[in-house]
């Protein structure tokens, strides 16, 4: 599994970048592999205020559905509209396919680095 060293990770198999007060979230290579062929992303609303661990988006594969959660409280300022008709892009390029961005007042805590995430997924 590809686990880039320059990203941070959640226990819910999301990758996260933090730039100032903007937090960008996608799902990991491991997550897309576990879900299988992705067919639809329900991107959710821009402008919504979400709590930590609240579902922002849903991604559906042929066999199942998963929520993508906010790793930290914030406001959803952007969703990746390019994924609306191209969910399979997450399968082919999970780290190039950000899903949503949050504006936060405090940075996320409890994130894993690449080595810790590798250890978690085994």
């Amino acid at each position, binding site marked *: 599994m590809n686990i880039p060293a320059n990203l941070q990770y959640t226990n819910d198999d999301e990758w996260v970048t933090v730039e100032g007060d903007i937090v960008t979230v996608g799902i990991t290579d491991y997550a897309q592999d576990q879900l*299988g*062929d992705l*067919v*639809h992303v329900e991107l959710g609303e821009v402008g919504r205020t979400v709590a930590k661990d609240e579902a922002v988006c849903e991604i*559906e594969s*042929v*066999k199942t*559905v998963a929520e993508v959660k906010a790793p930290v409280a914030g406001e959803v300022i952007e969703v990746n509209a390019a994924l609306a008709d191209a969910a399979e892009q997450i399968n082919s390029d999970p780290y190039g396919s950000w899903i949503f961005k949050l504006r936060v007042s405090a940075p996320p805590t409890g994130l894993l680095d690449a080595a810790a995430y590798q250890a978690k997924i085994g």
Partner: protein
Amino acid sequence: MRRTPFHGRHVAAGARMVPFAGFEMPIQYAGIREEHLATRARAGLFDVSHMGEIRFRGPKAEASLTWLLSNAIRRMEPGQAQYNALCNERGGVVDDVFVYKLADDDFIVCVNAANREKDFAWVTEHDREGADIVDEGDDWAQIAIQGPEAVEIVDLLVDFDARAVPRHHFRHASFADVDGCLIARTGYTGEDGFEVFVPAGDAPPVWDRVLDAGVNHGLVPVGLGARDTLRLEVRNALYGHELNDDTTPLQSGLGWIVKLAKPGGFLGSDAIAARKDEGRVVVGMVVEGKRIAREGMDVLSEGRVVGRVTSGTLGPSVDRAICLAFVDRELASAGTRLTIDVRGKEAVGVVVDGPFYKRS
């Protein structure tokens, strides 16, 4: 967790293994969509060794099955296969099964993996004729070779003309140099193809022999994930979803295998006849938009719950979200628009007749 004789081949091929009905089974190899489309376009190889086999032998075998099963067992010729429902006294479905008639006094009943123990207990308890009934579930491996090129692949592995085996018939012959196999022109995918029963002890090399034979025919290994999407596109019922101990086979659209008029009836026939106009029925729906209706979701009409989804997916060949559901029977006619509660959001499902996918 039990393993099939081909377990090592799946692991070596990098399949994702999951627990299913007490077995460790491959859910996918390259991916559900790719495996599904490969089966429709050319050919797929499935390990279905988890399925159970119950042998009925002796002079009472035919009479025993005629009572226990819903279809016209007495009309079968040796070498013929027939789909049947095994029903309880209330007319509910204990299992859906395929019967293979080897000889006038020798039958193999292929049962769902999840129901192996239940079915064997049921038939031994309810056989009123005195057939010789043996659980041969561990004695057989089973593979399915499905798709338009399956017949050409099977033809390379047998010493008869595979093309000459009619649909729902089989040969008791050697396959890939293993004697005593059943090579049946049956399947669950909606494609032409074969299901082959192989004596379990001789089975392991057969997997690679079949893949080698299929190398010029686009044959790929296919997991349970695509097996489910393939069957759903052609509306084949799956036990535990569209069939269960409480609903009758008529409610599930299996009237064509229910011979209520057969002489002497069968176990459950009186109850099925009495319940003929009762209860919800299974419908197929195409779901509008991109959300996917899934098992367990409520079906509504005018704000009232009128049914429940039993199976749902995105059909890779039809490229639409499709589902099966039990709904109130007055809402079962084609064209009826119903609402499906997809995690709190409404999706429209339109009832359609017949399979979602038809072979061209």
